[in-house]
């Protein structure tokens, strides 16, 4: 019998593993290089204060990256993550401050709102068949507008003290928010590697028509992906709420670029069908490292925006090369 399934894995599991995660190792190497460089230039970079601050903003960047990663899996996109995030935060803030709802219930309500708004996006995209870009561009301004109208853009800043306290908590030199982000990451790994739902989302992203004809309810998979994206955007927003200690209407407005940077740097394909959870985490780490490093090197945060743009261009080129390479590999032509 020609098929030697089992032997392949035993013979060189390490080789298999290495080949598959070659780009993750590359990414990790770059990150380490930056860390060495920045630390040698500005010792303050690895001070416990900076590491704590770094871990806090990294945690949020990771979850924002996940929020886009889950829709990239279906080959779609979600421009409304910032608006969904701020809606969830303002809703939770309003519940806590005006209605007096205790913190845990307000958090759950915020997450539920995020999932609902994500569902609306997914439902509109599947039902109307219109390009995800337009639906989420329009819904982004709808959600943001609705929130601003209801809240009159007033910050909810007399929140229960636990909110700010949790934001400042320190476990060793890491913020508990980082632990939450890694927990969500673990959940993502379980979703995409160990559940039927995750496989259906990836199949819908890789080839929607073939998936449909194989019995995968593609419409449902896309809607669920957008619900998850909304949920994660709300989670990121609420984590920011802890960090800032106040529910502010300006949350989430600058999430679009980092939300693409982290997954794309990490290897998630823009065309859909492949996600790398660890890649997204490393992608977010690289972006946060560079952000913090530039600040510490007093290059001034004005030039930061330029660097982030160039990095995304580089990541996109890398992605292009990888997917063309993967395409050539999967079509049998020797790369």
């Amino acid at each position: 019998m020609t098929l030697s399934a089992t032997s392949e894995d035993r013979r060189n599991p390490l080789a298999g593993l290495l080949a598959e995660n070659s780009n993750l190792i590359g990414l990790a190497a770059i990150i380490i290089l930056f860390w060495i460089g920045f630390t040698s230039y500005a010792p303050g970079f690895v001070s416990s204060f900076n590491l704590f601050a770094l871990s806090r903003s990294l945690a949020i960047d990771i979850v924002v990256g996940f929020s886009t990663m889950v829709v990239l899996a279906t080959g779609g996109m979600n421009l409304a993550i910032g608006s969904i995030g701020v809606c969830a935060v303002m809703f939770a803030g309003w519940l806590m401050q005006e209605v007096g709802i205790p913190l845990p219930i307000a958090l759950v309500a915020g997450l539920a709102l995020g999932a609902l708004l994500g569902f609306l996006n997914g439902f509109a995209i599947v039902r109307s068949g219109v390009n995800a870009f337009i639906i989420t561009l329009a819904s982004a301004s709808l959600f943001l507008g609705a929130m601003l109208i209801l809240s009159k853009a007033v910050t909810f800043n007399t929140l229960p003290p636990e909110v700010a306290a949790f934001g400042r908590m320190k476990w060793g030199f890491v913020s508990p928010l980082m632990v939450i982000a890694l927990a969500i990451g673990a959940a993502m790994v379980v979703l995409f590697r160990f559940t039927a739902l995750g496989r259906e989302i990836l199949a819908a992203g890789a080839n929607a028509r073939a998936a449909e004809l194989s019995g995968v309810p593609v419409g449902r998979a896309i809607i669920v992906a957008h619900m998850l994206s909304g949920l994660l955007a709300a989670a990121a927003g609420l984590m920011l709420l802890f960090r800032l200690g106040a529910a502010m209407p300006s949350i989430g407005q600058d999430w679009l670029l980092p939300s693409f940077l982290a997954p794309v740097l990490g290897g998630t394909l823009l065309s859909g069908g492949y996600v790398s959870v660890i890649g997204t985490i490393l992608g977010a780490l690289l972006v946060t490292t560079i952000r913090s490093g530039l600040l510490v090197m007093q290059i001034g945060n004005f030039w930061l925006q330029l660097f982030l743009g160039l990095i995304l261009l580089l990541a996109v080129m890398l992605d292009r090369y990888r997917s063309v390479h993967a395409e050539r590999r999967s079509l049998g032509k020797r790369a």
Partner: protein
Amino acid sequence: MQLSIEDIGKSFPGVTALDGVSFTIRPGEIHALMGENGAGKSTLIKIITGLYKPDRGRLTVDGKEVAFSSPRDAIAAGISAVHQERNLIPRFMVGENIVIERLPTRGGLIDYGAVHREARRFPDMIDPSIDTHTEVRRLSVAQMQIVEIAKALSLETSVLLLDEPTASITGHETEALFAVLRRLRDEGKAIVFVSHKLEEVVSICDRVTVLRDGRVAAAGEPIATMGRGRIVSAMIGREERVAEIGERRLAGAEPVLEARSIATSLGHRDVSFTLRKGEILGLYGLVGAGRTELARALIGDARILSGEVVLRGERVTIGSVPEAIRRHRLGYISEDRKAEGLILAHPIRSNIVIPIWRRIAGSLGLISRAAERRVAAPLAQRLEVKAPSIEQAVGKLSGGNQQKVSIAKWLAAGVDILIIDEPTVGIDIKTKTAIHELIGEITRSGVSVLLISSDMPEMITLADRILVMKDFSIRGEIENTRRYEAMSQAIMGHIHDGGDDEAKPREAGHG
């Protein structure tokens, strides 16, 4: 200008499309190019019109070798073509579409008066009622086809290639087109007429070249000497390699799938047939007969407007493909393996178990790769899928192995009614036979198969009964006597009924 094709060869991963094709197209003649699906016709056309580059052999124009890297080069060398798929710009006017390569300008701006004057001449030849000012998207399919032809004519090249030009135009317009072609031929142009319609080829073409399985069955034979019968047999070929797939006890098998005068949103009217348990029901027809569309309607991928579908004796309406699979255990193997059958980037393991992820997953919806492997590996082994490991991306497999993965998928899904659409298109002969045996084997284990194919030998090998389809309706039903000669004549009879055919096949069913 004389165009000759010399020993052209072209192959794709896992299949040789063209194997040493040579014939010559002389000026002042209409040269028919015929052949069954998968005979290599469309690949040859793409080579002649510069879309593909041949692996071996060469094209010569008046003896000089030419090489085309793009359609532009072919046009420059004097070869223009009307392809099957639409190549018009929907929101542009007819006139503009025709002369888009050389829009006349006055003072830097496009002179639309000149555009219409210039473009007017060509559609008028065929259908004067077409106004060059209307936008193409507002035209009927027939009118669009005429504009495509007009566009090719407007290039005034010395060689004009028409791929199934009469597929969607009426008899009256066909006559007008033939008159134009005859006039162009008399002006010394060379015309390559690619068509399935035997009676059209016989009435207008001077010579015919027939392709079969990538090789030339008849090279530039004058139509007068060939005659209808010899053309048909050249197309279908004589080999008697009818693989033995063993007898099946069909007597008294109860019907599993019945269509009672169903009409669909894709254009079927009053289609009825019965598929019995363990039977292979053949559905034969040419391009555009509506067979794939019928399959899509049956599995819930298109709407059934009227009539009844009865599954295992019970009347059903199937809303979606997932429902067809999960609730009715009805599967469909698509003709376009790469785009609709498989997920190329994903490994064999997951491609096989896609339909049953939900079933393998526990209550929490959790699956491990090991669980998938426990289902996929034995199936891949049983179907002898040649691959280094089950983690191999399906895209890296040969056509034959990909089809085996496709079949393994449906075996995993445990469907007992399987619609198979062109199972062995683009697959090498050796693997083809293995797949035929495989289909035979699964029917013996109780699966009923609706086989859609335009590969005559395959149909006669596998099918118990054969329905002949044309223009979205069933034209006849023939018991399969497995005698190749009689069966192929009978089938072609149904397809080409209406012509004054010498060898009128007697009604089938004679022993």
